[in-house]
């Protein structure tokens, strides 16, 4: 219970002020399409130079927590996930908003984020020594299969037809191979110089989600405010309902914790995997994708439950569990704090103050998040022409600021317009984005696996032998078979009618 000794350190005037600023700023940055948590944390690192290590870490931690939750705001209101982690939130969040339940959806999002976040940080506080070495167990073969698992989950989830979903996932994986091979350094498929750096993930996320959404908004010219009445449900009612969805919260938090411990792929797929789980065990499967609160609850509790555990390998081994944690590592190093046992001995005060402040940040995120939920109606009521213009400009500036590269903006707009037409052919953006995100992970680990396997018994053995490999492979196969099964059942049902 060492952490309790340092609790009072959090509650100094300066620290609380930084926490509040970080949380509110993080929520807003996360909500802006094009500004991902990873980028928000990276861009804020220079600000921590002028602060004490404690204050710097508190700010980065608060921003990390809040941007993950903030990304759900635009996912629910605009159908544009603020970060890859929020893709699963779109699936039921946006349909709820369309039914006029945007406030309710946001309430669920923040309450579940809070529950998941607290659980994740408690895991970080109590189980760090126990879980420290888990991250080291994952070698190239396991990471390869986890990436493939992520793609199969999304392919079978967010599509009317599994074949189209798998095709989109493979297309995303293929697009990710454009540019330099990360292992061999060979340049591939650079049809035009703008692709020489490959397709940036944020450019793809913004392009594939935001631009098609703007185009379909303009095409339909739907002023949401005229279409329906906003439904009123009190905060107390949402809270009561949310906490009664025990199954969704548990599945979400546990999945988030487990996936947060896996280095690399972690944060991006936590929400999706838990959404997939809850959909499979739920009694009303057919409601998913049409505005089922359980979908939001599972996805968002997983997203935030991932934050705490993703710091376990970071603080003990210097192995980041998510891309944002990787940037946070830079924040630690700048202040001369190096991951490892020292953090909990020499720097114990700073480390525990940081972890405790993450706990406090969850409460602040809940309070400000719920407040912002009340303002959501203004976003929904904004006339389409202003909305379209604002999203476009934000998308352009956000994409540019990732690496100060105009080619990224070109790729973003090109992908966006193509995706709009592809969506008319019945394709969805999510599997392509997931393919793009997980592609480099899959390929790098495949190439490394191949080099290592050649010194042993060959690539096939290396990829398939061992309990961990077999577990993940069977998960992949299960999710495809389950998806096929439901699709066939649905098709025969449709025919009978």
């Amino acid at each position, binding site marked *: 219970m060492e952490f309790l000794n340092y609790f009072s350190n959090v509650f100094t005037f300066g620290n609380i002020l930084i926490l509040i600023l970080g949380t509110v700023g993080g929520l807003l940055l996360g909500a802006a399409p094009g500004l991902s948590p990873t980028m928000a944390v990276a861009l804020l690192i220079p600000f921590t130079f002028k602060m004490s290590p404690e204050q710097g870490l508190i700010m980065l931690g608060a921003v990390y927590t809040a941007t993950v939750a903030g990304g759900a705001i635009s996912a629910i209101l605009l159908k544009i996930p603020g970060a890859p982690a929020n893709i699963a939130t779109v699936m039921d969040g946006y349909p709820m908003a369309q039914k006029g339940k945007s406030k309710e959806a946001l309430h669920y999002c923040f309450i579940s984020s809070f529950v998941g976040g607290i659980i994740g940080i408690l895991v970080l506080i109590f189980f760090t020594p126990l879980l420290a070495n888990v991250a080291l167990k994952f070698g190239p073969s396991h990471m390869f299969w986890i990436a493939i698992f992520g793609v199969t989950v999304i392919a079978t989830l967010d599509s009317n037809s599994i074949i189209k979903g798998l095709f989109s996932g493979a297309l995303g994986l*293929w697009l990710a*191979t454009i540019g330099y091979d990360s292992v061999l350094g060979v340049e591939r498929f650079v049809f035009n110089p703008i692709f020489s750096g490959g397709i940036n993930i944020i450019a793809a996320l913004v392009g594939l989600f935001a631009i098609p959404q703007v185009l379909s908004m303009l095409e339909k010219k739907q002023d949401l405010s005229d279409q329906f009445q906003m439904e009123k449900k009190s905060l107390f009612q949402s809270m009561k309902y949310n906490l009664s969805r025990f199954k969704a919260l548990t599945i979400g938090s546990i999945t988030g914790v487990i996936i947060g411990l896996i280095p690399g792929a972690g944060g991006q797929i936590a929400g999706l995997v838990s959404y997939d789980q809850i959909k499979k065990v739920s009694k009303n499967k057919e409601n998913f994708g049409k505005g089922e609160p359980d979908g939001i609850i599972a996805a968002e509790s997983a997203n935030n439950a991932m934050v705490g555990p993703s710091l376990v390998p970071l603080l003990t081994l210097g192995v980041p569990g998510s891309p944002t944690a990787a940037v946070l590592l830079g924040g630690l190093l700048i202040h001369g704090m190096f991951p490892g046992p020292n953090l909990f001995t020499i720097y114990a005060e700073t480390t525990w103050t940081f972890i405790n402040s993450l706990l406090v940040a969850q409460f602040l995120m809940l309070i400000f998040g719920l407040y912002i939920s009340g303002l959501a109606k203004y976003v929904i009521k904004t006339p389409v022409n202003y909305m379209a213009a604002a999203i476009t400009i934000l998308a*352009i*500036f956000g994409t540019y600021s990732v690496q100060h590269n105009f080619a990224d903006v070109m790729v973003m707009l090109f992908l966006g317009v193509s995706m709009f037409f592809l969506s008319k052919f019945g394709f969805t953006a999510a599997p392509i984005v997931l393919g793009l995100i997980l592609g480099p992970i899959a390929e790098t680990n495949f190439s490394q696996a191949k080099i290592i396997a050649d010194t042993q018994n060959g690539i096939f053995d290396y990829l398939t032998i061992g309990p961990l490999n077999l577990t993940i492979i069977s998960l992949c196969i299960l999710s495809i078979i389950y998806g096929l099964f439901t699709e066939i059942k649905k098709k025969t049902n449709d025919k009978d009618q």
Partner: protein
Amino acid sequence: MIKINKLSSVVLVLILSILLAYASFSGGTSEAYIFPKLLSTVMIILSFLSLVLYFYNKNEKITEVDIKKLSIYLGSLLLFLVFGELLGFYFLAVLIFLIICYVYSEKKNKKSIFYNFLITLCFIIFIYFLFAILLKVQAPRFFLF
């Protein structure tokens, strides 16, 4: 108005996967092409499967794209692509914001045009504050701004 039916979607998938497979297999013998080759093979198999399924299950659904309505938006994106680095982000952002607001607004009277200008101004100042001052992003500029 462009009309899209189900067969065209199947054909599109087939063409796309053949093109990508061609690129992957003609790329070279380097180890770097193993993974793309693997993927494009999977894509070809999937697209043939969807072709087979099409003949099994022919329920026609036609979707439409209102290309005329969207042409001004698409044109303004093109404007940004071509002149983005030359004329600077802030100048073009103002221009595009005004164009989109004006063309896609319901009412086109003097008052709404005034509002368009006001909102554009506020939004661009917000963008400038967020990116240039807060996040220290140096977007391409043209002469003065």
